[in-house]
């Protein structure tokens, strides 16, 4: 009896080894490393679901170039150190053809040296400008940058005749990067930053910082952050009876923000990806169909759609289209084709990549929204 079980186990092990040993050639391997768990799970979770959903769909439609797609995924849990290990594994052990991933700027930046060494195309799903500036030969990205958000906000402030603004930001990476962009760009738009306050992202009350802002001659308040903190800031502003216009960043462009900030959210303006207001876009908008398609598919399976999942859709689409045009998975050819992406309609906007621009989105990919009666209204 014992020997029989032993034999069976041996056979099973051998069978597993055999299937594990079958190597690429008949599949196209898309590698990805995302923060599916940990503090940045709100990014990685919808991104992975999106990738899985579309890889499945492409395969059901026969794959591309007659080959099935295979998604190889590792969870970095938001640790840049892990990202390096996993990218090495993707390249050396799994032999992937292209990498779509890196949920956060930290993860992506940590992985870039490995990608450049191995000369494999990487399409990042993270926001930071530094990923594509300066341009790196093998690195691309799909999401908007915080600089675009700042520009969009400043343009609107100028239109409203605002010259002095008070800045309040959290202590996270997103917040700090946004703050840097705001401080750098404000003078170019003739804006003076008269207050520069910060809070901890887990803080429960920001009235102290806002009381200081109230004592300045600021004409508007700009809050760069995400999570619960911006909703608390918005509530505290109204609680203190401050009547200044409030601007938020794209970090809070979800229904959850309106829900949490409640009535205090009325009149708040922010730049956001078109996905948030897909239904409200005019029928002539080229993005409308893509957005509604993605939204319906995602929501049928996983609940409320997020712009982050959209970035993964864009990344996969860019990679797949490039592989199709390159008629194969030769890494250098695929890279060249990614760089030649033109007029590709994604969820973040219309991508037009060039040798100098490895993101390919223009500033108007962001819509400027205002909260009115508990809902988003496109104002620009």
């Amino acid at each position: 009896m014992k020997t029989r079980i032993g034999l069976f186990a041996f056979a099973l092990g051998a069978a597993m080894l055999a299937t594990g040993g079958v190597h690429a050639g008949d599949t196209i391997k898309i590698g990805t490393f995302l923060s599916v768990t940990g503090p940045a799970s709100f990014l990685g979770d919808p991104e992975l679901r999106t990738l899985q959903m579309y890889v499945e769909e492409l395969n059901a439609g026969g794959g591309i170039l007659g080959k099935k797609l295979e998604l190889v995924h590792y969870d970095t849990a938001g640790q840049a150190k892990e990202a390096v290990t996993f990218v090495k594994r993707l390249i050396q052990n799994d032999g992937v053809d292209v990498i779509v991933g890196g949920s956060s700027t930290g993860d992506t930046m940590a992985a870039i040296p490995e990608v450049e060494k191995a000369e494999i195309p990487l399409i990042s799903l993270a926001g930071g400008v530094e990923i594509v500036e300066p341009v790196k030969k093998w690195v691309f990205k799909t999401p908007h940058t915080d600089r675009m958000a700042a520009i969009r906000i400043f343009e609107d402030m100028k239109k409203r005749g605002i010259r002095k603004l008070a800045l309040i930001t959290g202590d996270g990476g997103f917040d700090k990067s946004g703050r840097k962009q705001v401080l750098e760009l404000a003078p170019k738009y003739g804006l003076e930053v008269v207050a520069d306050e910060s809070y901890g992202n887990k803080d429960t009350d920001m009235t102290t910082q806002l009381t200081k802002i109230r004592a300045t001659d600021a004409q508007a308040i700009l809050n760069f952050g995400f999570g619960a903190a911006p909703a608390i800031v918005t509530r505290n502003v109204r609680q203190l009876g401050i009547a200044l216009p409030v601007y938020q960043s794209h970090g809070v462009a979800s229904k959850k923000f309106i829900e949490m900030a409640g009535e205090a959210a009325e009149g708040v303006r922010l730049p956001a990806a078109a996905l948030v207001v897909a239904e409200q876009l005019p029928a002539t908008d080229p993005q409308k169909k893509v957005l509604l398609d993605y939204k319906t598919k995602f929501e049928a399976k996983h609940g409320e759609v997020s712009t982050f999942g959209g970035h993964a859709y864009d990344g996969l689409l860019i990679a797949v289209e490039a592989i199709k045009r390159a008629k194969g998975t030769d890494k250098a050819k695929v890279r060249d084709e990614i760089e030649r992406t033109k007029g590709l309609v994604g969820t973040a906007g219309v991508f037009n990549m060039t040798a100098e621009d490895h993101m390919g989105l223009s500033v108007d990919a962001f819509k400027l929204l205002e909260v009115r009666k508990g809902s988003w209204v496109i104002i620009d």
Partner: protein
Amino acid sequence: MLDQLPQFLITGVTVGSIYALVGLGFAIIYNASDVVNFAQGEFVMIGAMMAISLLTAGAPFLIALVLAAVCTVAVGLALEKFAVEPARGASVVTLIIITIGASILLRGIALLVWGKNFHAMPHFSGETPLHLGSATLLPQNLWVMGGTAVLVIAVRWFFGRTSVGKALLACSCNPTAAQLMGINVRRMLLLAYGLSALLGAVAGMLVAPITFTSYDAGVMLGLKGFSAAILGGMGNSMGAVAGGLLLGILESLGAGFVSSGYKDAIAFVVILLVLFFKPSGLFGRGSSERV
């Protein structure tokens, strides 16, 4: 500059009240068993989450709050019964590690049950700001301060005036002697965990309308409450309350008058200074006394 002071103080006292309640929870369990219960922050989170779930399910306000408190107490009792009690006789360090494990487990369960999103709770009595001189405050701020005051007085009365409370204190002084006097030490320990969970739950429900809550909201509150308890002197309930209020006010004044970026640093530097000169905390018993 000075006309902003009242606002800073109101903010400080509100935030400090919550730290005080969490710190008080730490102090009670520490008093009963010398164990620092690192799942205290999770009690706060569970109380708030339960209340929000029940409210969204359509339960009347008061019933939702009471039920949420009962559920949280049940979690506290279960923690003692199934995690701490089986390890009876183990060293204090082992027990503390068990509570850390329990906090991670509770957070994980909360993540599965309630997801990663933030949840908002309606204010107890409206959101119209009240004006107090140059300062404004929400009715909820008063609820937080008032609720904390009532609980603190109740806890004080419980330990000072009731025989059960005194029995609980006796367990902390000398469990063996307490047992010989006919006190059921095991039951007392269960009571301590239940009481701490109750305090945590109430703190969570009081503060949730102002701060929102999420599965990991307990981490930061637990840390701040722990700091409050240390600052006031571990093992001194009223010290923990004073420590909490002091910590809240320090943070607020630090952010207001120095720099909001160094708010936490200022508070922690003060704590370090206090511990440097008075290692047992502001109101702590000297350690020699315990021998």
